[in-house]
């Protein structure tokens, strides 16, 4: 009998002493923290501990924020040279780097993602976004293609809960570099790092009103979208809400960018480096608990290697460490909210009832908090809900193919078009598949890589516009993109 090899890790918890969370927060408007009227709790999804009370912005709060942003735009920000604007962004980038540990701990407490990811991905990338865009501020005349670009004015920005600080950076950095002022609303369940960012703006002595942060739920978001004092809307979230926003702004002159859902295909060809592909599959779907719009949630395997890949994948999944997000060894943290957990359960139940076969990694889930074991479904057909709808959790749907063209056809058979993965050691096949896939980001022999210099965004119903690079910057400039 084979001896069972036990590989226990000693707990390596990150200290939370570096953050001080106030019992109650207000909004950040006109450079000052102002108190809110109504509040709602924000919790640590790993423990269900109430971390703080977050203000719910109503009409008066949003009005005040838009007014402050307009005033800052008219009196200060639009008059300042790009060179000086850029210096503020450089300052913000530096302060975020200085306070990176604090941001990482706070993000993990509020979001549930592993500290390893908030520390190594979210926070450094957020700072990098400010650093990158800072350098654009005095080069805008080179950003357009023969046009003279101008700022829109006041940008209203609504961001999701999966990468709270990073999505804030993706929104605020280009908006400010292009000369806009902003009113930003973080997601209902993850406001704390945005409020900490407000402190960074104060430390950077950013002129009052250039950045305004109002917290709240979808009702606050609707107030921003419909506010007549806002010139530009930027939203990251679900395709359903994206369509609502597109309809709401249709009769107005507002410019819109949308980063929406996805159902990315991750295609493994028989000539792939299988071990690397397995790592890529794991990274593609289990990074950030699968709460990633560009997650590789549909694994499309060539039949000749399907059994080998699935055996290795299950073996690898069994070694994923699920649990305390504050533990530095943790790979998979908590599901962000009860609501999201219920949605994942509903869709996986549909996977069972529609005839796919479920396999979950054996792991002990904590008693408190919101958890879902890493799971794959095999025998999935293109008609199954789990092959069509975004699950936004650690759940992978596996389909197979025989010919490369079949792989492409299956990959493209979705209204989404955000991202896709290709695994093959054959260069010409990689480039062919890259051309055929209808998606805005293609990861070939890698997955889930991001960089401020690299445009990110979707085809089809995955959204409008790009974020990152020169292309992303132009979304915040009038007279460059046609909107």
């Amino acid at each position, binding site marked *: 009998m084979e001896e069972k090899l036990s590989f226990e890790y000693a707990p390596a918890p990150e200290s939370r002493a570096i953050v001080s969370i106030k019992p109650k927060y207000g909004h950040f408007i006109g450079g000052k923290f102002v108190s809110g009227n109504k509040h709602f709790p924000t919790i640590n999804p790993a423990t269900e501990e109430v971390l703080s009370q977050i203000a719910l912005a109503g009409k008066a709060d949003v009005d005040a924020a838009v007014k402050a942003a307009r005033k800052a735009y008219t009196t200060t920000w639009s008059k300042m040279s790009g060179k000086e604007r850029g210096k503020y962004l450089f300052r913000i980038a530096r302060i975020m780097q200085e306070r990176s540990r604090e941001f990482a701990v706070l993000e993990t407490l509020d979001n549930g993602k592993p500290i390893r990811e908030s520390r190594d991905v979210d926070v450094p990338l957020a700072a*990098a976004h400010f650093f990158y865009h800072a350098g654009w501020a005095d080069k805008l005349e080179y950003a357009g*293609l*023969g*046009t003279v670009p101008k700022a829109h004015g006041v940008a209203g920005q609504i961001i999701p809960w999966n990468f709270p600080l990073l999505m804030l950076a993706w929104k605020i950095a280009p908006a400010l570099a292009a000369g806009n002022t902003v009113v930003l609303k973080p997601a209902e369940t993850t406001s704390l790092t945005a409020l900490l960012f407000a402190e960074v703006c104060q430390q950077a002595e950013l002129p009052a009103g250039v950045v305004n942060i109002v917290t709240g739920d979808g009702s606050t978001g609707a107030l921003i979208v419909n506010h007549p004092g806002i010139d530009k809307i930027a939203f990251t979230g679900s*395709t359903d809400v*994206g*369509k609502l926003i*597109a*309809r709401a702004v*249709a*009769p107005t002159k507002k410019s819109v960018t*949308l980063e*929406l859902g996805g159902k990315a295909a991750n295609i493994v060809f028989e000539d792939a480096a299988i071990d690397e592909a397995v790592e890529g599959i794991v990274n593609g779907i289990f990074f950030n608990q699968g709460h990633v719009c560009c997650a590789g949630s549909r694994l499309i395997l060539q039949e000749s290697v399907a059994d080998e890949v699935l055996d290795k994948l299950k073996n690898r999944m069994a070694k994923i460490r699920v649990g305390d997000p504050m533990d530095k060894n943790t790979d998979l943290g908590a599901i962000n909210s009860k609501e999201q957990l219920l949605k994942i359960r509903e869709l996986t139940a549909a996977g069972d009832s529609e005839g796919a076969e479920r396999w979950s990694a054996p792991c002990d889930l904590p008693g408190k908090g919101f958890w879902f074991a890493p799971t794959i479904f095999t025998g999935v057909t293109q008609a199954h809900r789990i092959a069509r709808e975004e699950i936004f959790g650690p759940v992978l749907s596996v389909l197979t193919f025989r010919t490369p063209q079949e792989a492409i056809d299956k990959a493209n058979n979705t*209204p989404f078009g955000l991202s896709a993965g290709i695994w093959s050691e054959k260069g010409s096949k*990689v480039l062919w598949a*890259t051309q055929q896939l209808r*998606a*805005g*980001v*293609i*990861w*070939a*022999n*890698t997955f889930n*890589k991001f*960089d401020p*210099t*690299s*445009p*990110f*965004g979707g*085809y*089809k*119903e995955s*959204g*409008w516009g*790009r974020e990152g*690079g*020169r*292309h992303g910057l132009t979304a915040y400039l009038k007279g*460059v*993109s*046609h*909107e």
Partner: protein
Amino acid sequence: MSNRIDVKKTYKLFINGAFPRTESGRTYEVKNAKGTFIANPCLASRKDLKDAVVAARAAQSGWNKASAYNKGQILYRIAEMLEGRRPQFVDEIITVTGVTKAKAEKEVTDAVDRLVWYAGWTDKISSLSGALNPVAGPYYNFTIPESMGVIAAIAPESPSLLGLIDAVTPIIVGGNTVIVLASTKAPLSAMSFAEVVATSDVPAGVINILTGKKDEIAPWMASHMDIDGLDISGLSSKAHGEIRIAGAENLKRIYTFKSADPGRILAFLEHKTVWHPIGN
């Protein structure tokens, strides 16, 4: 005056490289500025639009696959064909709109020159908006413009020829296929332009031309789930809101344009970013 009776042209639609009448059997009267009857062009139906979309979708991957050099030569060929039929276009513009000969000639000249200008963009647009992104890691990372798919356009009422060229050409430069609704009041240039297209080596289905009513066809275009983008420059701004609302169902890219510039080409291209590790 000679006693010869003219042979008049029947103005039909242009779908999938052929000239069908509308399946609906409907027509409408086109009159000149003085109210004299000129022609009975087709009043295109929803089914005609559907047929045009099917043709445009079927043609898209082939057109997209054609090399930029090849696309440029085909666009230049359209200019050659138009140049060779200048008198016909000048006459038709004068007949319908009543403008002076000089004005009509200028419009045709501008239309030919505009086609030549667009022809030169096919193999340059990606060097303008493509990028090699200097990411912080061992990855080769580039962004390239790519065709969006099937795009519909509402051409402006006037200028009926130049406006049509500006609606159609930037869309196909980057590999999209197009369904365009011609000027309602002055559709003659558009239907004669279809004859130019038909003799210019443009593959069937790449350019499809309908005549009819904007307020009928624009909402059908906006709600069609297999149209990826829509140019509504030729539509009254009062109608834009409703069209954008209908287009949100598949998040259609809907734009208006004021001029011919590279942005007009890029508006209907998607940008694709590709990552690959570097190693040995």
